[in-house]
Protein backbone atom coordinates (compact mmCIF):
# COMPACT_ATOMS: atom_id res chain seq x y z
CA UNK A 1 0.00 0.00 0.00
CA UNK A 2 1.20 3.50 -0.62
CA UNK A 3 0.55 4.80 2.90
CA UNK A 4 4.13 4.54 4.05
CA UNK A 5 4.87 4.04 7.68
CA UNK A 6 5.69 7.32 9.38
CA UNK A 7 9.42 7.81 9.17
CA UNK A 8 10.99 4.42 9.97
CA UNK A 9 14.10 5.65 11.76
CA UNK A 10 12.04 7.84 14.02
CA UNK A 11 9.60 5.07 14.83
CA UNK A 12 12.36 2.59 15.58
CA UNK A 13 14.05 5.07 17.91
CA UNK A 14 10.79 5.62 19.75
CA UNK A 15 10.18 1.88 20.01
CA UNK A 16 13.64 1.34 21.43
CA UNK A 17 12.97 4.09 23.93
CA UNK A 18 9.83 2.23 24.98
CA UNK A 19 7.44 4.99 24.03
CA UNK A 20 3.92 3.69 24.42
CA UNK A 21 2.38 5.43 21.42
CA UNK A 22 5.09 4.04 19.14
CA UNK A 23 3.96 0.51 19.87
CA UNK A 24 0.37 1.44 19.12
CA UNK A 25 1.49 2.93 15.80
CA UNK A 26 3.53 -0.16 14.95
CA UNK A 27 0.67 -2.54 15.67
CA UNK A 28 -1.94 -0.37 13.96
CA UNK A 29 0.18 -0.08 10.86
CA UNK A 30 1.20 -3.69 10.46
CA UNK A 31 -0.76 -6.25 12.44
CA UNK A 32 -3.75 -6.70 10.12
CA UNK A 33 -1.46 -6.64 7.09
CA UNK A 34 0.84 -9.27 8.57
CA UNK A 35 -2.13 -11.51 9.19
CA UNK A 36 -3.27 -11.08 5.58
CA UNK A 37 0.20 -12.01 4.35
CA UNK A 38 0.54 -14.96 6.73
CA UNK A 39 -2.77 -16.45 5.61
CA UNK A 40 -1.21 -17.21 2.24
CA UNK A 41 1.42 -19.46 3.75
CA UNK A 42 -0.28 -21.60 6.35
CA UNK A 43 -3.32 -23.78 6.54
CA UNK A 44 -5.65 -21.81 8.77
CA UNK A 45 -6.27 -18.63 10.62
CA UNK A 46 -5.18 -19.78 14.07
CA UNK A 47 -1.82 -20.90 12.69
CA UNK A 48 -1.51 -17.61 10.81
CA UNK A 49 -2.16 -15.75 14.06
CA UNK A 50 0.59 -17.75 15.74
CA UNK A 51 2.95 -16.94 12.91
CA UNK A 52 2.21 -13.24 13.33
CA UNK A 53 2.80 -13.45 17.10
CA UNK A 54 6.05 -15.21 16.36
CA UNK A 55 6.92 -12.47 13.92
CA UNK A 56 6.34 -9.79 16.53
CA UNK A 57 8.60 -11.60 18.97
CA UNK A 58 11.24 -11.77 16.23
CA UNK A 59 10.80 -8.11 15.39
CA UNK A 60 11.23 -7.09 19.02
CA UNK A 61 14.31 -9.22 19.45
CA UNK A 62 15.96 -7.92 16.28
CA UNK A 63 14.86 -4.31 16.52
CA UNK A 64 18.07 -2.99 18.10
CA UNK A 65 19.97 -4.30 15.08
CA UNK A 66 17.54 -2.92 12.49
CA UNK A 67 19.54 -1.21 9.80
CA UNK A 68 17.96 1.06 7.32
CA UNK A 69 19.10 -0.92 4.31
CA UNK A 70 15.49 -1.95 3.79
CA UNK A 71 12.35 -0.16 4.87
CA UNK A 72 10.86 -1.24 8.17
CA UNK A 73 7.92 -2.66 6.23
CA UNK A 74 10.10 -4.88 4.05
CA UNK A 75 12.17 -5.92 7.02
CA UNK A 76 9.10 -6.98 9.02
CA UNK A 77 7.59 -8.76 6.01
CA UNK A 78 10.79 -10.70 5.54
CA UNK A 79 10.74 -11.86 9.15
CA UNK A 80 7.14 -12.97 8.70
CA UNK A 81 7.80 -14.87 5.49
CA UNK A 82 10.74 -16.69 7.05
CA UNK A 83 8.69 -17.71 10.08
CA UNK A 84 5.69 -18.68 7.95
CA UNK A 85 7.81 -20.85 5.71
CA UNK A 86 9.52 -22.59 8.60
CA UNK A 87 6.10 -23.22 10.03
CA UNK A 88 4.80 -24.48 6.68
CA UNK A 89 7.71 -26.91 6.39
CA UNK A 90 7.09 -28.19 9.89
CA UNK A 91 3.47 -28.83 8.94
CA UNK A 92 4.61 -30.45 5.71
CA UNK A 93 2.75 -27.87 3.75
CA UNK A 94 5.42 -26.72 1.39
CA UNK A 95 4.69 -23.63 -0.58
CA UNK A 96 5.86 -23.76 -4.16
CA UNK A 97 7.19 -20.39 -5.17
CA UNK A 98 8.69 -21.16 -8.48
CA UNK A 99 6.47 -20.65 -11.49
CA UNK A 100 7.64 -24.06 -12.69
CA UNK A 101 6.13 -25.74 -9.66
CA UNK A 102 2.98 -23.72 -10.19
CA UNK A 103 1.78 -24.61 -13.67
CA UNK A 104 -1.59 -22.93 -13.04
CA UNK A 105 -3.18 -25.04 -15.76
CA UNK A 106 -6.74 -24.06 -14.87
CA UNK A 107 -6.09 -20.35 -15.04
CA UNK A 108 -4.11 -20.55 -18.23
CA UNK A 109 -6.57 -22.82 -20.00
CA UNK A 110 -9.44 -20.54 -19.11
CA UNK A 111 -7.48 -17.65 -20.54
CA UNK A 112 -6.35 -19.48 -23.69
CA UNK A 113 -9.93 -20.53 -24.48
CA UNK A 114 -10.80 -16.92 -25.12
CA UNK A 115 -8.72 -16.81 -28.31
CA UNK A 116 -8.97 -18.51 -31.70
CA UNK A 117 -6.09 -20.43 -33.30
CA UNK A 118 -4.66 -17.23 -34.73
CA UNK A 119 -4.56 -15.52 -31.34
CA UNK A 120 -7.52 -13.18 -31.92
CA UNK A 121 -10.24 -12.66 -29.33
CA UNK A 122 -13.10 -15.17 -29.46
CA UNK A 123 -14.49 -13.92 -26.19
CA UNK A 124 -13.31 -10.34 -25.74
CA UNK A 125 -13.16 -8.71 -22.31
CA UNK A 126 -16.64 -7.83 -21.13
CA UNK A 127 -16.88 -4.10 -20.61
CA UNK A 128 -16.44 -2.83 -17.09
CA UNK A 129 -13.56 -0.57 -17.79
CA UNK A 130 -15.48 2.61 -16.99
CA UNK A 131 -15.30 1.47 -13.38
CA UNK A 132 -12.73 3.36 -11.36
CA UNK A 133 -10.77 1.85 -8.48
CA UNK A 134 -12.46 4.39 -6.20
CA UNK A 135 -15.90 3.08 -7.10
CA UNK A 136 -14.87 -0.55 -6.85
CA UNK A 137 -13.36 -0.02 -3.42
CA UNK A 138 -16.63 1.34 -2.13
CA UNK A 139 -18.59 -1.74 -3.14
CA UNK A 140 -18.60 -4.26 -0.39
CA UNK A 141 -19.64 -7.09 -2.68
CA UNK A 142 -16.87 -6.37 -5.17
CA UNK A 143 -14.31 -6.33 -2.38
CA UNK A 144 -15.62 -9.66 -1.08
CA UNK A 145 -15.27 -11.18 -4.57
CA UNK A 146 -11.76 -9.85 -4.86
CA UNK A 147 -10.79 -11.21 -1.42
CA UNK A 148 -12.16 -14.63 -2.31
CA UNK A 149 -10.26 -14.61 -5.59
CA UNK A 150 -7.05 -13.74 -3.75
CA UNK A 151 -7.66 -16.53 -1.23
CA UNK A 152 -8.14 -18.97 -4.10
CA UNK A 153 -4.78 -18.16 -5.75
CA UNK A 154 -1.99 -20.74 -5.64
CA UNK A 155 0.40 -19.81 -2.79
CA UNK A 156 3.22 -18.42 -4.93
CA UNK A 157 0.89 -16.16 -6.90
CA UNK A 158 -0.81 -15.05 -3.75
CA UNK A 159 2.42 -14.17 -1.96
CA UNK A 160 3.67 -12.18 -4.94
CA UNK A 161 0.47 -10.24 -5.56
CA UNK A 162 -0.06 -9.42 -1.89
CA UNK A 163 3.48 -8.08 -1.59
CA UNK A 164 3.65 -6.30 -4.93
CA UNK A 165 0.20 -4.95 -5.69
CA UNK A 166 -1.42 -4.77 -2.29
CA UNK A 167 1.56 -3.82 -0.15
CA UNK A 168 3.50 -1.96 -2.81
CA UNK A 169 6.83 -3.71 -2.18
CA UNK A 170 9.26 -3.29 -5.11
CA UNK A 171 9.88 -6.24 -7.41
CA UNK A 172 13.49 -6.40 -6.28
CA UNK A 173 12.46 -6.62 -2.64
CA UNK A 174 9.82 -9.23 -3.39
CA UNK A 175 12.43 -11.43 -5.09
CA UNK A 176 14.57 -10.95 -2.04
CA UNK A 177 11.85 -11.72 0.49
CA UNK A 178 10.57 -14.79 -1.33
CA UNK A 179 13.95 -15.87 -2.66
CA UNK A 180 12.81 -16.15 -6.26
CA UNK A 181 14.19 -14.83 -9.54
CA UNK A 182 12.96 -11.70 -11.24
CA UNK A 183 11.49 -13.71 -14.12
CA UNK A 184 9.71 -16.01 -11.73
CA UNK A 185 8.32 -13.09 -9.84
CA UNK A 186 6.95 -11.51 -13.00
CA UNK A 187 5.33 -14.75 -14.19
CA UNK A 188 3.62 -15.27 -10.83
CA UNK A 189 2.51 -11.64 -10.71
CA UNK A 190 1.12 -11.85 -14.21
CA UNK A 191 -0.83 -15.03 -13.57
CA UNK A 192 -2.29 -13.63 -10.39
CA UNK A 193 -3.34 -10.41 -12.12
CA UNK A 194 -4.91 -12.37 -14.98
CA UNK A 195 -6.99 -14.35 -12.49
CA UNK A 196 -8.04 -11.35 -10.45
CA UNK A 197 -9.05 -9.35 -13.50
CA UNK A 198 -11.11 -12.32 -14.64
CA UNK A 199 -12.76 -12.53 -11.22
CA UNK A 200 -13.74 -8.86 -11.42
CA UNK A 201 -15.00 -9.36 -14.95
CA UNK A 202 -17.14 -12.31 -13.84
CA UNK A 203 -18.71 -10.08 -11.24
CA UNK A 204 -18.96 -6.77 -13.09
CA UNK A 205 -18.93 -7.55 -16.81
Amino acid sequence: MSDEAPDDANLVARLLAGEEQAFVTLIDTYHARLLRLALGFVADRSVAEEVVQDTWAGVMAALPSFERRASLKTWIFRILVNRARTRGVREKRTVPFSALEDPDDAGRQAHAARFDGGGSWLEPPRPWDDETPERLLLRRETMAILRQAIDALPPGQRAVIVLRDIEGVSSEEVCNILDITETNQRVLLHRARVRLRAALEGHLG
Partner: protein
Amino acid sequence: MLTCAEITELVTAYLEKQMPWRRRMAFRMHIGMCRHCRAYLRQMRTTVQTLGHMPAEPIPTDVLDELARRLRSMRLPPRAKQ
Protein backbone atom coordinates in the same frame (compact mmCIF):
# COMPACT_ATOMS: atom_id res chain seq x y z
CA MET B 1 2.57 -8.03 -35.60
CA LEU B 2 1.57 -9.15 -32.11
CA THR B 3 -1.63 -11.14 -31.72
CA CYS B 4 -4.27 -10.33 -29.12
CA ALA B 5 -3.31 -13.46 -27.17
CA GLU B 6 0.30 -12.30 -27.13
CA ILE B 7 -0.72 -8.84 -26.00
CA THR B 8 -2.51 -10.25 -22.96
CA GLU B 9 0.59 -12.31 -22.13
CA LEU B 10 2.76 -9.20 -22.31
CA VAL B 11 0.56 -6.84 -20.30
CA THR B 12 2.48 -7.28 -17.06
CA ALA B 13 5.87 -6.91 -18.73
CA TYR B 14 4.51 -3.74 -20.36
CA LEU B 15 3.15 -2.29 -17.12
CA GLU B 16 6.39 -3.22 -15.37
CA LYS B 17 8.33 -1.47 -18.12
CA GLN B 18 10.30 -4.65 -18.69
CA MET B 19 10.09 -4.65 -22.45
CA PRO B 20 12.64 -3.82 -25.12
CA TRP B 21 11.91 -0.59 -26.96
CA ARG B 22 10.89 -2.21 -30.25
CA ARG B 23 8.48 -4.56 -28.56
CA ARG B 24 7.02 -1.70 -26.61
CA MET B 25 6.32 0.16 -29.82
CA ALA B 26 4.66 -2.92 -31.32
CA PHE B 27 2.60 -3.34 -28.16
CA ARG B 28 1.44 0.26 -28.27
CA MET B 29 0.60 0.04 -31.95
CA HIS B 30 -1.61 -2.97 -31.33
CA ILE B 31 -3.30 -1.30 -28.36
CA GLY B 32 -3.96 1.76 -30.51
CA MET B 33 -5.81 -0.31 -33.07
CA CYS B 34 -7.56 -2.98 -31.00
CA ARG B 35 -10.33 -1.89 -28.67
CA HIS B 36 -10.60 -5.30 -27.01
CA CYS B 37 -6.95 -5.29 -26.01
CA ARG B 38 -7.32 -1.67 -24.99
CA ALA B 39 -10.16 -2.67 -22.67
CA TYR B 40 -8.07 -5.56 -21.35
CA LEU B 41 -5.13 -3.28 -20.57
CA ARG B 42 -7.39 -0.75 -18.89
CA GLN B 43 -9.05 -3.43 -16.79
CA MET B 44 -5.67 -4.77 -15.73
CA ARG B 45 -4.64 -1.29 -14.63
CA THR B 46 -7.88 -0.84 -12.71
CA THR B 47 -7.38 -4.23 -11.04
CA VAL B 48 -3.85 -3.32 -9.95
CA GLN B 49 -4.91 0.12 -8.70
CA THR B 50 -7.80 -1.36 -6.77
CA LEU B 51 -5.50 -3.87 -5.10
CA GLY B 52 -3.20 -1.04 -4.12
CA HIS B 53 -5.90 0.46 -1.94
CA MET B 54 -7.42 -2.66 -0.49
CA PRO B 55 -7.55 -2.46 3.27
CA ALA B 56 -6.70 -5.51 5.33
CA GLU B 57 -9.62 -6.88 7.26
CA PRO B 58 -9.94 -4.69 10.34
CA ILE B 59 -8.99 -6.03 13.74
CA PRO B 60 -10.80 -4.77 16.83
CA THR B 61 -9.05 -1.88 18.55
CA ASP B 62 -8.95 -3.54 21.95
CA VAL B 63 -7.12 -6.53 20.45
CA LEU B 64 -4.60 -4.18 18.87
CA ASP B 65 -4.15 -2.18 22.05
CA GLU B 66 -3.60 -5.29 24.12
CA LEU B 67 -1.03 -6.47 21.59
CA ALA B 68 0.77 -3.13 21.67
CA ARG B 69 0.97 -3.40 25.47
CA ARG B 70 2.31 -6.94 25.30
CA LEU B 71 4.88 -5.99 22.68
CA ARG B 72 6.10 -3.11 24.77
CA SER B 73 6.59 -5.38 27.77
CA MET B 74 8.60 -7.73 25.52
CA ARG B 75 11.08 -5.00 24.82
CA LEU B 76 14.56 -5.70 26.05
CA PRO B 77 15.43 -2.99 28.53
CA PRO B 78 18.20 -0.99 26.88
CA ARG B 79 21.64 -1.54 28.38
CA ALA B 80 20.16 -3.43 31.30
CA LYS B 81 21.87 -6.39 32.95
CA GLN B 82 25.35 -5.66 31.75
